[in-house]
């Protein structure tokens, strides 16, 4: 069976790939949105932190023999710790300034981190093996599902919705939302807002690193893996708007699928389709699909 001249199997395979890329967009844009909500900073280092997540997992495996599942927990914690040091020593000094300085600082940090990894590991990239439990694939009847790709989609969705649940449905989340709305008032109620800001940054960074570990077995673990991705994620954030958690998730997944469909039907445009959609959204709905006009 074919749809517009494309065999159904190939179409499904591409859609799965799109869903997988979309999961990465979703986790990364979610992290950006969480950080932006609390710190009012666009974290340009996000791509570098995603790359660090993958590298830490690779180093853990190749040097210390730490397996994938443990790395999935350890690597985000390690990268988040580095992020917290950055927040405490540098970002903290910029909160009273124009938000653009935060962007510039994190941009500089991204260059430093990327450069350090490039000097240390070169640009050829390292291979990370797919964990044994997830090798091979499953025949679903209508298509062949590589297990690891399925796992990436499921794991990302679980993490995304857990984040949504924490922020929208728990007491801690309510503090977070209150801090986004009015940090001074929250501080007056006796909540340690600076600590919360630090932990929020750490959490956002951990999300990026988690995505990095998920990505390690699929893509080459490469110092430059984050920087190109992060620009696409910026476009995703502009399209979705950073006002809503669910909005980030839906936009991320949706754009991954759109990109996949473009790759099937008009491959030349697949690299730019998200940017084109961004331009159209800006014309029709400048605040973004889920954004609030401020």
């Amino acid at each position, binding site marked *: 069976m074919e749809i517009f001249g494309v065999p159904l199997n190939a179409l499904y395979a591409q859609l799965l790939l799109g869903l997988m890329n979309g999961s990465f967009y979703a986790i990364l844009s979610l992290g950006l949105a969480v950080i932006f909500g609390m710190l009012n900073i*666009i974290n340009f280092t996000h791509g570098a932190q995603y790359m660090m997540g993958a590298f830490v997992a690779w180093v853990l495996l190749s040097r210390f023999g730490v397996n994938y599942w443990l790395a999935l927990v350890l690597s985000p914690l390690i990268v988040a710790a580095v992020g917290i040091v950055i927040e405490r020593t*540098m970002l903290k000094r*910029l909160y009273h300034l124009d*938000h653009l300085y935060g962007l510039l600082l994190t941009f500089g940090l991204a260059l*430093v981190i990327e*450069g*350090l990894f490039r000097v240390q590991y070169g640009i050829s990239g390292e291979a990370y093996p797919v964990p044994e439990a997830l090798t091979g694939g499953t025949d679903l009847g209508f298509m062949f599902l590589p297990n690891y790709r399925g796992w990436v989609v499921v794991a990302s969705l679980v993490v995304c919705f857990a984040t949504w649940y924490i922020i929208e449905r728990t007491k801690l989340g309510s503090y977070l939302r209150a801090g986004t709305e009015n940090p001074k008032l929250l501080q007056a109620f006796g909540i340690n807002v600076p600590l919360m800001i630090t932990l929020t940054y750490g959490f956002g960074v951990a999300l990026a690193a988690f995505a990095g570990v998920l990505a390690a077995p699929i893509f080459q673990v490469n110092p430059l893996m984050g920087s190109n991705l992060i620009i696409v994620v910026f476009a995703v954030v502009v399209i979705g708007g950073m006002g809503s958690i669910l909005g980030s998730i839906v936009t991320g997944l949706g754009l991954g699928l759109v990109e996949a469909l473009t790759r099937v039907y008009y491959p030349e445009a697949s690299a*730019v389709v998200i940017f084109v959609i961004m*331009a159209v959204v800006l014309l029709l709905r400048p605040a973004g699909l889920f954004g609030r006009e401020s």
Partner: protein
Amino acid sequence: MKISGNLIASFVLFGLLLLAPLAREAIYPVFLMKVMCFALFASAFNLLLGYTGLLSFGHAAFLGAAGYVTGYTIKALGFPTELGLMAGTVTAGLLGFIFGSLAIRRSGIYFAMITLALAQMVFFLALQMKFTGGEDGLQGIPRGKLLGFIDLRDDINLYYFVLAIFGGGFWLIYRTIHSPFGQVLKAIRENEPRAVSLGYDVSKYKLVAFVISAALSGLAGSTKSVVLQLASLTDVHWHMSGSVVLMTLLGGVGTVLGPVVGAATVIGLENKLGDLGNWLAGATGINALSTIGEAVTIVTGLIFVVCVLTFRRGIVGELAALVKRSGVNVKSE
């Protein structure tokens, strides 16, 4: 009496640049030409960041696209040099109109992200389209003859031509900043809602500033492609967009001469970093320092971090503040 420190410093600068070819044994004309191209680029960028308060993270697109168009029209279509430069500049202006129309719909951080994303689109297009030469870029662009009789293959002829372009562009930016139009831009930078309430069509002003900035960045890119006879993906890459932000920030955002100083420092550093690393390694005995040359991005990033954390007024801004404290009335704007 009010001394315009800028005017004096500018005259000194251009006087030195006029005389520079006398010392061509010490300073390569091609290096100076490259610096001038980037100085124009950074000055054009500063018109937007420093005087309108808009942070564009996609200015590489204008520099790069103009370079490609100039290179292609001269090399493949046989345009005379001056027409090729014009074609590049106009292209960048049009591109600036498109980018600007979209990006001014949002402000602040979103503005930066939108320009970055649009520039990345231009990067992918440059990578895929046939006329740009993809990964190889356009190489061996002929310099041609100016007005049909001045041979630009001669470095000194070309040097004075580039100096004239840089001077013209610099003067245009200076005039724009000090015109009533420039005053409105500064008003928008300082307090946008107030500018709106005073009846200014803020979007229109922003857009015009964006187009001027883009076109002049394009002129810089076009000139650069003639000087180096090369248009490549480096010029459209987002690193370049970051680089021009750094030049402006390091020199001094919102100062007339800051971007020139910043561009000279950054380009000089990129060219000399290897020597510097070797020298440091020799002086301190730490061998690791000799690898500094390979790690331009690390050093660039570090300068970024230091600038943002401790040095936000930039070199020229700090100097002006220093002079001001000593009692002489100097304007750096």
